[in-house]
């Protein structure tokens, strides 16, 4: 399983000389499973350059998983090249809502007057799926989706393959109204997705002072993300969803604070950046067990 970051900025795309090291595109992560299955996490502006990288002969089936429908996770969809290819089998997964289907909610954006073409006229005719609350197989992986604490219906995803796992919670406020360090893990939003993950992509938008002025907006401070990562026992914390006002040096200052808080626990936190690649080699013991079970 290999992941590549195409956008890790939160809230609003923010290109410019102040953001060149970590990038200004909003959320989009490509995940390629070992059997070749192509998964895309979120459709922020990073999905546009990602779309240009796709091999049209190879990738005819694409699974796009939306964490939620805030614009910074959806605004790139209309500019995703595969959306316009009639030969592509595009599956769009997202959080269910009690009122409107996923297709109806996305059509509010992908239709006039906000977009020139109506969703029903788009050549790939995407198929929409509410993500089940729980686990389901996809290609050579198992996907787990669970609702998490953010404004509006939002899910966190865990992708598991060969005994390794990636957790993706780009917008998450687990510390809303509670002290994470005083909570039992079963009462922490997102714990069921993140626990023991090899890699955790997690919201790290604010400094503590910024968070204090934005409580309830659905995001985490650097203190919160480190506490959440430690409580979840993740092996590699990747700080994600950078605030659009944070320059590269400011992000590095946040990383220094996170590293201090993390202490000597495993490998320290890192900042997500465009072009970041992470490869998870299957756990040999799990692979052997799977092979025996298949025989």
């Amino acid at each position, binding site marked *: 399983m290999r992941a590549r970051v195409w956008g890790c900025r939160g809230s609003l795309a923010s290109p410019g000389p102040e953001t060149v090291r970590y990038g200004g595109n909003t959320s989009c992560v490509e995940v390629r499973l070992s059997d070749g299955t192509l998964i895309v996490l979120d459709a922020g502006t990073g999905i546009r350059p990602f779309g240009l990288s796709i091999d049209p002969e190879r990738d005819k089936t694409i699974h796009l998983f939306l964490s939620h429908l805030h614009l910074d996770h959806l605004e790139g969809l209309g500019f995703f090249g595969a959306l316009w290819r009639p030969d592509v089998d595009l599956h769009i997964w997202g959080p269910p809502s*009690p009122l409107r289907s996923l297709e109806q909610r996305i059509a509010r954006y992908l239709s006039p007057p906000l977009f020139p073409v109506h969703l029903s006229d788009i050549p790939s005719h995407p198929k929409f799926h509410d993500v089940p609350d729980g686990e389901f197989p996809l290609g050579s992986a198992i996907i787990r989706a669970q609702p998490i604490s953010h404004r509006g219906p939002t899910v966190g995803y865990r992708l598991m393959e060969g005994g390794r796992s990636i957790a993706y919670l780009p917008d998450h406020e687990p510390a809303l109204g509670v002290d994470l360090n005083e909570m039992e893990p079963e009462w922490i939003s997102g714990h069921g997705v993140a626990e023991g993950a090899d890699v955790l992509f997690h919201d790290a938008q604010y400094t503590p002072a910024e968070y204090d002025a934005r409580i309830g907006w659905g995001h985490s401070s650097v203190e919160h993300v480190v506490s959440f990562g430690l409580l979840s026992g993740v092996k590699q914390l990747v700080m994600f969803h950078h605030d659009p006002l944070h320059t590269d040096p400011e992000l590095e200052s946040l990383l220094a604070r996170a590293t201090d808080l993390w202490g000597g626990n495993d490998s320290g936190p890192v900042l997500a950046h465009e072009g970041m690649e992470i490869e998870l080699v299957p756990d040999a013991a799990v692979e052997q067990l799977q092979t025996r079970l298949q025989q």
Partner: protein
Amino acid sequence: MEKTQQRNLVLILARELAANSATPMFVVDPDGTLVFFNEPAEQVLGRTFAETGALGPDEWGAMFSPLGTDGKPIPIDQLPLTKAMRDLQPGHLEMTITGMDEERRKIAVTAFPLFARANEFVGAVAIFWEANPPG
């Protein structure tokens, strides 16, 4: 390595609401276990959640000796929280309880079920008011 069965987000948020509310609140899980009550509820009940921990439905239903306005004991299956869990409907009742500090208090209780997604019952919340709070 995963070890923890996380609670449903709606139940987590209900507990967070209770923990930050000045209104006395109970939170029960889908099995009827009292999984949290807040500090204002501790004042009415006469015991802290840290002292009691989680309580099964038979435990919390009986331990407050609820009496109706007619002075007769209220069966557990007629309590608002029981109605919320059994019938998945809101319930309301006035009653007198004897707290774990042996003090008798007249209270009004409103309970309602919690749903996640369309019809997934994930627990219930009871909110209660002391009719004659000590001055």
